[in-house]
């Protein structure tokens, strides 16, 4: 049981550490993610579906997270995936990679390893040749953060 005196003392100790963090960090991260997605889609609607994002739901080490993105597409000249974009929600900047494909790819499947700073969503967006955008979102739990060694996100 914490007494009122102990609580006040604790809050005095804890305040300087918290003060280093930007109080609007969550809102800023959200805005930068939305800006990044808008940059890619040009404001067009992104529908969930067609894309399968494969990320482990529990990540021990955020420094190397295996990611596989596959998209349902016949990959013909008339109907193929033009690009696959990958974003993370909590990183200092949301882009991970942009892969440009074409009918020569045969299959729309990309594997890579990315860094994830904190527990949050990973979003894959596929840009089809007909101009539509499809996405898949997976929420991952990260125990060891990447990007910032001291853990301050």
């Amino acid at each position, binding site marked *: 049981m914490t007494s009122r005196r102990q609580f006040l003392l604790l809050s005095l100790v804890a305040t300087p550490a918290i003060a280093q963090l930007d109080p609007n960090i969550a809102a800023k991260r959200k805005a930068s993610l939305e800006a990044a997605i808008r940059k890619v889609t040009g404001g067009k609607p992104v529908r969930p579906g067609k894309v399968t994002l494969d990320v482990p739901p529990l990540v021990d080490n955020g*420094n*190397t*997270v295996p990611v596989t993105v596959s998209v349902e597409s016949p990959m013909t000249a008339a109907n193929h995936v033009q690009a696959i974009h990958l974003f*993370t929600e909590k*990183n*200092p*900047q*949301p*882009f*991970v*990679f*942009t*892969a*440009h*494909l*074409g009918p*020569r*790819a*045969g*299959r729309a*499947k*990309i*594997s*890579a*390893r*990315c*860094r*994830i700073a904190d527990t949050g969503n990973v979003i894959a967006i596929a840009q089809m040749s007909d101009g539509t955008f499809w996405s898949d979102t997976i929420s991952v739990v990260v125990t060891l953060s*990447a*990007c*910032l*060694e*001291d853990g301050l996100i």
Partner: protein
Amino acid sequence: MAAVAVTIPKTAKRGEVIEIKTLAAHVMENGFRRTQTGELIPRDIITQFVCTYNGVEVFRAELYPAMAANPLIAFTTVATESGTLELKWTGDNGYTATHSASITVS
């Protein structure tokens, strides 16, 4: 010459979808980390990867600091004809790495 490791099948049937796995040795310093004295470590990453098949670009990727160190990229392409696959990585501070492999399509 920067070190890369690439897996490309040597032979394939015409029209077969082949998988290409690439790994480039690179620290991918993300530009957000600090030294013990608090100085920001400048960004040093691979920014682009291009794969050409007999001179035709079949795959291109733009990489950002959120790619892990020693970036792995695995993708697919259709084996259309015998020839060479040229892979090229470019990055900050004039980093370039190339790899070429020949493929026989029957």
